[in-house]
């Protein structure tokens, strides 16, 4: 009886070894030791767990250790306590890098989510060419960030196409990537342009779960487009919002490739981020200890903002 009452997919009783004995009568005594069907043992994962521990966590902890030293990458080192962190907080250039990192992270989060959602809404239903357009908008995602950045560098060049187009309208040419006020925005544009397609796909997956009947019922009741979006669509795609915003925030906080390819952190540090400073201090200037402190700080910032963001997008219903 138990078996016939369940759904065809319900194999829980069988797997747990609680199925009645064949031929009816007294049910078999449940065996606690082993299920009838099992797919593995916890220790099978031990080599992988050990590898993750060694490669990720022990290595990271080892890197964090150097944050409290003055190691130059070669030879001996001394413990300097919190000196590296004090130096970070006292250096206006590094505070500027922190501000740039936060600007790019939140600008990237907002831009990709707003444009990604708009594209997803526009290409969700009805439009005949939506499949072609989805492919076109997603294509930049599969390209290498470096390749994309070098193409945009050409576009932003003083003698490049952007200034050429502006010249048609009589505008003065600009040094987009060498202007301290414009360069950071240029980096943000390139980052957002390449990744919006990814966010669009996440939202398209979310929109596919929104029941059309409810939207149609709301429309028949006279709800405006905005009210339908606000009260039906948005609550339904809340998991997609959480995923997209978390991914974009983390990606924005650790931006590196685009900055290095477009500006190298210049002009004079105007587009420097924590990630580029970590690279520069560690590998270009051989300040391994200081670079490790910067990396640790970046990790902590990413951790804090990820937790805050998760809390902000948590489904409280």
């Amino acid at each position, binding site marked *: 009886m138990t078996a016939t009452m369940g759904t065809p997919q319900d194999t829980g009783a069988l797997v747990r070894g609680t199925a009645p004995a064949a031929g009816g009568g007294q049910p078999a005594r449940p065996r606690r030791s082993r299920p009838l069907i099992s797919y593995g043992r916890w220790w099978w994962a031990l080599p992988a767990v050990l590898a993750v521990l060694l490669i990720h966590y022990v290595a990271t902890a080892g890197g964090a250790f150097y944050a409290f030293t003055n190691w130059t*990458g070669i030879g001996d080192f001394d413990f300097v306590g919190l000196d590296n962190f004090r130096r970070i907080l006292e250096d206006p250039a590094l505070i500027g890098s922190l501000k740039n990192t936060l600007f790019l992270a939140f600008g990237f989060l907002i831009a990709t989510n707003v444009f990604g959602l708009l594209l997803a809404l526009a290409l969700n239903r009805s439009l005949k060419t939506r499949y072609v357009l989805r492919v076109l908008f997603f294509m930049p995602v599969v390209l290498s960030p470096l390749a994309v950045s070098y193409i945009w560098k050409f576009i932003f060049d003083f*003698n490049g196409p952007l200034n050429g187009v502006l010249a048609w309208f009589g505008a003065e040419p600009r040094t987009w*990537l060498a202007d*301290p006020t414009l360069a950071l925005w240029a980096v943000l544009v390139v980052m957002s342009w390449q990744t919006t397609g990814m966010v669009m796909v996440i939202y398209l997956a979310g929109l596919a779960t929104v029941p059309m009947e409810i939207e149609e019922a709301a429309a028949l009741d006279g709800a405006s487009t905005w009210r339908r979006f606000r009260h039906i669509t948005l609550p339904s795609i809340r998991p997609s919002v959480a995923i997209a915003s978390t991914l974009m925030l983390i990606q924005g906080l650790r931006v590196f490739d685009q900055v290095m390819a477009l500006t190298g952190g210049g*002009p*004079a540090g105007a587009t420097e981020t924590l990630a580029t400073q970590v690279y520069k201090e560690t590998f*270009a*200037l051989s300040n391994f200890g200081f670079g490790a402190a910067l990396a640790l700080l970046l990790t902590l910032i990413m951790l804090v903002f990820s937790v805050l963001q998760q809390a902000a997008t948590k489904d409280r219903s």
Partner: protein
Amino acid sequence: MTQHRHRGLRRIGVLAAVPALSALTLAACGGGDEASGSDGSSGSADSFTFAFENASGGQQNPWQLLADEYAEESGVQIETQGLPPDSYGLTMRTQLQGGNAPDVMMFSPGAGNANAVLPLAEAGYIEELGDESASLIPEGNESLFQIDGKTYAQPTDIIPVGVVWNTGAASDTGVDVPADESAMLDACGTLAEDGKSFLAVAGSAPPNMGLMAMAISATRVYAETPDWNEQRTAGDVSFADSEGWQATLQTIVDMNEAGCFQQGAAGGGFDAITQGLTQGTSLGAFVPGAAATELAKATPGLELQVQPFPPADGGESYLLASPNYALSINASSDEGAKEAAQDFLAWMAEPENAARFTELQGGVAITGPDENLSPVYEPVADLLENGDYAPLPNLAWPNPGVYDALSTGVQGLLAGQGDVQSVLEGIDQAWDQ
């Protein structure tokens, strides 16, 4: 129960065997053959490994050509490793620490660059060289190659740094090499009106900004005070208080305002320099003299010469010139490989081989200008012969951060960020760290 216990023991055995086997495998990979040498650097008296910077990645690199010639002449096998310049210093540091560094390595003298030799020598990774190598060090450059009188690197040739001047384009536009700063600023205005520029610079590439500042500092700082770096090390002077360095950076600001640089210079890359020079839209550029030879070879009909940067009004011409590359031997190499490496360095020190390398690299002989001096250096031959030159300043600076502060600071001046004084204070801060 017994079967259960046996099965349990077997599971525990398997559990323990997996990481144990992994650890043993890793140990076997990392351990190597003790008998083969103290570390990964292997070799015998008839072979050695040799690493150098190779920006283009091609086989026409002067180090590669020289190694090929030596291998052919001596029968010694040389395994070469040409690496990109931007990661060269880091790679060598990592390999030296890992015990698998090459036997012979190209370095930058002093301590001011990421690929500098002295910090590695201080850490005990570099073999001490003999008197033959020491005898090649130009007078006044000892501190770039030696620690406590012991030599750790052998210089190869001298590279002058000034303004690489397109003589053909200059004569087409009717502009002579300016005698001083005022004449230069006048020439800048004239050229800008014709849609050309006096200089092409790579504003987006900080190293080019740093080289420009150093080339200008030759006349503003080092002509009057050749031992300025020593004074700074002793704490007697500072960048922020130095009139010479203030004048150097102010010259850059004045040049920018006078239109001396190509349009969009702040965002220009190295391609702007090569295009400007080869197409004649810019008359000069701040690139090492050896690059002028390379550019001239690559562009038929292009006439390039190295000129000293115009001095301040009333000042005298002065130049930067120093051995910018040096060869060292890995202290951890096998004795056989060390012997082979030392033979190679001795071969390089021989006058005809040194001359050959000078020709290949496009520099000046380590012993000074001679009858083989490239025509590219004709305008600065007198300065070289009279000793009116100083080593590239950053070679003697204490860490790469000083040059980085200068480079990015000048980049900011070109982009309208900061001022002369704040840039100089930033350089002092980098020096003191």
